[in-house]
């Protein structure tokens, strides 16, 4: 019953059993924890932590360690080859393009998205129809990366400029309206990578705007008024009052977007599939592992991604803690 379910009724039965099992486990934990209450706090804490620790070890720690282990093997995962996979990543021209693209993504997206979000947050702050204006920018956040990729693929769509053929891509139509030749936008490297980055910016600017707008609203009115009495102009207000006050929020936004950007996969996968020199680490990791069946190299790419994300995560958490203190 727990292994294979073919009919719908079986599946529902299986789901019910799973829910019951879950409830039973939680009930047991609460029951045991209740018996310990007041006697041994450590035991209670350990008990509450146990499920999390268990799930983290099964779901994160073990696969992580196993991936690191596999990254030292060849495509078949049978022969130990030391650091060869890493050497490939750092020397093979295709892999170097992947690293270059990832660098573009991480260096451009967080700053542009945060900059756009910040500018927008300041412009709409206390303006009429503020919430409507914010909703417009925030909406892309609610779309999945895949859907965003599909939408923008249409935006960049190309039709040859012959006779009666009409452009269906918005961007090429504008180019035609302006009297230009339609371009195969997603073919030319490295322009295509920046066009993909634009999609990520479109999604993330809303996130940046929301967080930064909240931070701007948290600045006490009287400090703004004191600054006006002291004689600051609009730029001075931003430089001396707004920016110092929202600095922690800006850092959290930049690092959060950077982490998301490092792991970007869906946009590249849906729009180019990593072709035309647009691949990034996460996409390459997928391609190597599941398409080219080179599991060793795929694992190595995953490890590289992991290593790149760690420092940003650490910095992000420290900033979060500091802003809460």
């Amino acid at each position: 019953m727990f292994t294979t379910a073919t009919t719908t009724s079986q599946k529902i039965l299986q789901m019910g059993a799973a829910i019951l099992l879950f409830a039973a486990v939680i009930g047991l934990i609460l029951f045991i924890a209740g018996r310990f209450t007041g006697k041994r706090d450590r035991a209670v804490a350990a008990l509450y932590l146990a499920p999390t620790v268990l799930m983290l070890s099964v779901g994160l720690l073990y696969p992580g360690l196993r991936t690191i282990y596999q990254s030292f093997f060849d495509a078949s995962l049978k022969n130990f080859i030391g650091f060869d996979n890493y050497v490939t990543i750092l020397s093979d021209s295709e892999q170097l393009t992947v690293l270059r693209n990832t660098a573009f993504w991480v260096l451009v997206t967080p700053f542009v998205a945060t900059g756009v979000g910040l500018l927008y947050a300041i412009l709409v702050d206390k303006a009429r129809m503020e919430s409507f204006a914010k909703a417009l920018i925030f909406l892309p956040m609610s779309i999945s990366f895949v859907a965003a990729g599909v939408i923008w693929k249409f935006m960049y769509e190309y039709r040859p400029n012959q006779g009666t053929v009409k452009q269906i891509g918005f961007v090429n139509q504008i180019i035609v309206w302006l009297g230009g030749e339609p371009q195969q936008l997603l073919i030319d490297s490295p322009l295509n990578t920046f066009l993909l980055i634009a999609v990520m910016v479109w999604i993330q600017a809303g996130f940046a705007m929301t967080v930064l707008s909240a931070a701007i609203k948290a600045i006490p009115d009287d400090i703004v008024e004191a600054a006006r009495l002291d004689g600051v102009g609009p730029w001075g207000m931003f430089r001396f009052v707004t920016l110092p006050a929202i600095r922690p929020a800006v850092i959290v936004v930049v690092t959060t977007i950077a982490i998301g950007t490092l792991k970007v996969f869906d946009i590249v996968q849906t729009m180019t599939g990593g072709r035309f020199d647009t691949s990034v680490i996460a996409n390459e990791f997928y391609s190597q592992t599941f398409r080219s069946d080179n599991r060793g190299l795929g694992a190595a790419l995953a490890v590289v991604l992991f290593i790149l994300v760690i420092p940003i995560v650490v910095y992000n958490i420290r900033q979060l803690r500091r802003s809460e203190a």
Partner: protein
Amino acid sequence: MATVTYDKASRIYPGSERPAVNELNLEIGDVEFLVLVGPSGCGKSTSLRMLAGLEDVDRGRILINEKDVTHLPPKSRDIAMVFQNYALYPHMTVYENMAFALKLRKTPKSEIDRAVKEAAALLQLEEYLSRKPKALSGGQRQRVAMGRAIVRQPQVFLMDEPLSNLDAKLRVQTRSQIASLQAKLGVTTVYVTHDQVEAMTMGHRVAVMLDGVLQQVDTPRALYDTPGNVFVAGFMGSPAMNIKTVPLNETGAHFGALNIPLTREQVAAAREGGDGKVTVGFRPEAADVVGESADALPIVVDLVEDLGSDANVYGHADLPGGSERFVVRTERRNMPHMGETVYIRPQTTALHVFNAGSGIRI
């Protein structure tokens, strides 16, 4: 150095019928310390903010030194303001906070340094100059806010309840410091508070406001001795004046069996629009506790507040219109006990008589 004039200045918030400040007329003299006082929502803070330029003036004008500043931005008015929550820049040190306005004006560094150090010495802030506001106590922050205002050498100081975030003892101490500082610097000051004790002790003159309308402006003593209407009479002084509206007859006001004599003119004035009644007030200290007597008001004591120096006696008397509460101040050795009945007789020389209809002093 500077005078301030409110010329029928009004502020009507969008979407509101009633003006927050209604045709305020007020002349503030050079080097004067004027206190705006009133209950919350009376428009005192709005009036101050109109002067600062933080609030629009919808009608009328505001002049500083005979110059119309009604439509000037705050920075062009040459004023400095101390906020209730101090509004210090959290990321700047005490020194930078005080120097900020001068820095924006491109004052030479040496001059800024001199001005900041001077103000810091005046406010005993020298040892805290490199600290951030977060690392200061409430009283120190308050002094930094003062320092920030002083450094600019403005024409007018504006203070919006600067003491309300301090504890009682520090408030009393800072109160006198601000008053003496103002006298020393000789800068025209407009000070907003809801605390009538602050108003009485600090102001050269006090302006009492209610519902956006200026009720009376005068010296603290004059406000206390001759309040212009019932509201001012009840607002100034603690404990508040005993104010009762009672039946009027040919010779005076009827407090039950006790008849408080009024002059013929007072009776005549009270008749007009008074509907046969008159409002009479006497301060807690302007009543004598006497022995049992027919021409005294019997009061059942509800509560006795022993203040150390003297005592406030709270009680009620049964008057024809119902039970009325009274408070009198007595010497400590005459302190009655709770539940006891004492006889009080208001001093006829210190009576405040108001028209029962209009509330205006007779």
